[in-house]
């Protein structure tokens, strides 16, 4: 397992580090993040409008991203799931695979149900194997930002990122009203329509 060298020894990747790499690598993609600490972390890292934050509906990050991807086939999407939220709705994997969207399905895996207090989650499964068996075109597991920065996967792809549980306080609750969160996402999708459509609207 590759680890990031640090001055005080070897350490695991942190969620915020992984999210920063994802945001940097996919500035034009629409992100859909799962409920709990992940959406709060993401909202704390970016003010851009290419993120749709789920506050509830655990397990729905990939289905929501899939719906967007079906409506907007020219765009790229990143569903940001947690290990617990993906396990809650594993049956979304075949549905995503069957539609073959232009989508990266990220699983930030800290090994526990962190947002409810760090309780044990069901362990023993391989997310990459599950995705491949479901029909995803590619799947990979990484534990370092170096690997995360250089990885290119053919969509629909599952990217299993191993991270350590957070050591400090989680990011604050998202203050933006949900209606505005939805409006921001809709606006980003509308603006990102293919240039050909925009040209037609202009004439």
């Amino acid at each position, binding site marked *: 397992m590759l680890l990031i060298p640090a001055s005080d020894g070897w350490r695991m990747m942190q969620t915020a580090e992984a999210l920063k790499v994802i945001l940097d690598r996919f500035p034009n993609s629409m992100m*859909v993040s799962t409920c709990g600490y992940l959406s709060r972390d993401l909202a704390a890292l970016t003010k851009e409008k290419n993120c*749709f934050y*789920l*506050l*509830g*509906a*655990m*397990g*729905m990050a*990939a*289905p*929501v*991203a*899939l*719906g*967007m*991807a*079906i*409506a*907007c086939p020219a765009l790229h999407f990143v569903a940001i799931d947690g290990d617990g939220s993906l396990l809650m*709705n594993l*049956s*979304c994997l*075949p*549905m995503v695979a*069957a*539609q073959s969207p232009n989508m990266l399905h990220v699983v930030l895996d800290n090994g526990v149900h962190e947002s409810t207090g760090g309780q044990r989650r069901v362990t023993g499964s391989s997310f990459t194997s599950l995705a491949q068996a479901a029909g995803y075109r590619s799947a990979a597991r990484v534990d370092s930002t170096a690997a995360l920065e250089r990885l290119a996967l053919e969509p629909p792809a599952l990217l299993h990122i191993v991270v350590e549980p957070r050591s400090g306080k989680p990011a604050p609750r998202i203050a933006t009203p*949900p*209606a505005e*969160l*939805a409006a921001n*996402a*809709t606006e980003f*999708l*509308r603006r990102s329509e293919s240039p050909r459509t925009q040209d037609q609207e202009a004439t």
Partner: protein
Amino acid sequence: MSSLTSEPRSAVIEHRPNRTAQRVLDRLHANGSRFFTGVPCSLLSDYFDILEKSQGTGDAMCYIPATREDSAVGVASGLALAGERPVVLMQNSGLGYCLNVITSLNLVYALPVLFIIGWRGHTPADAPEHQIIGPRLTRLLDTFDLPWITLQPGSPEQSVDDCLERQGNSRCCSFLLVTGGE
């Protein structure tokens, strides 16, 4: 009846889909609904039959099979955020799975979805697994102020229009209940 006048036993019985389903879907399609998702219900078999046979490209109705009803609502919510007018079809047994998505996503963010629900357990004559939720279906919807109407087979377009009107007026999700009485 004499064997000379009866139908030959080997004749293929042509399945004519119920016109009601076609009229409902056509009305929704004409209103701008391109995408339909859900999990089958035997009461809605004509609907699924039409959707499965649809081209799915361009402006034609596009069917997205879902693995479970709550995921169908998730997909529909993504479609709604992208400006589409999604329709979700399911048996009422799937509504229980959907309640978390409806109450913590659709109603909280106001993401409009029109539901076509096959109403099993509408009568006591139906199978036992439907006898708890069947008689309570409309009360369950009422608990969350979710508007519903029962499809009138004699005027399917009017039923669709009524359902769409309620979707726009109040809680953004509305429910067309199909009892299979047509």
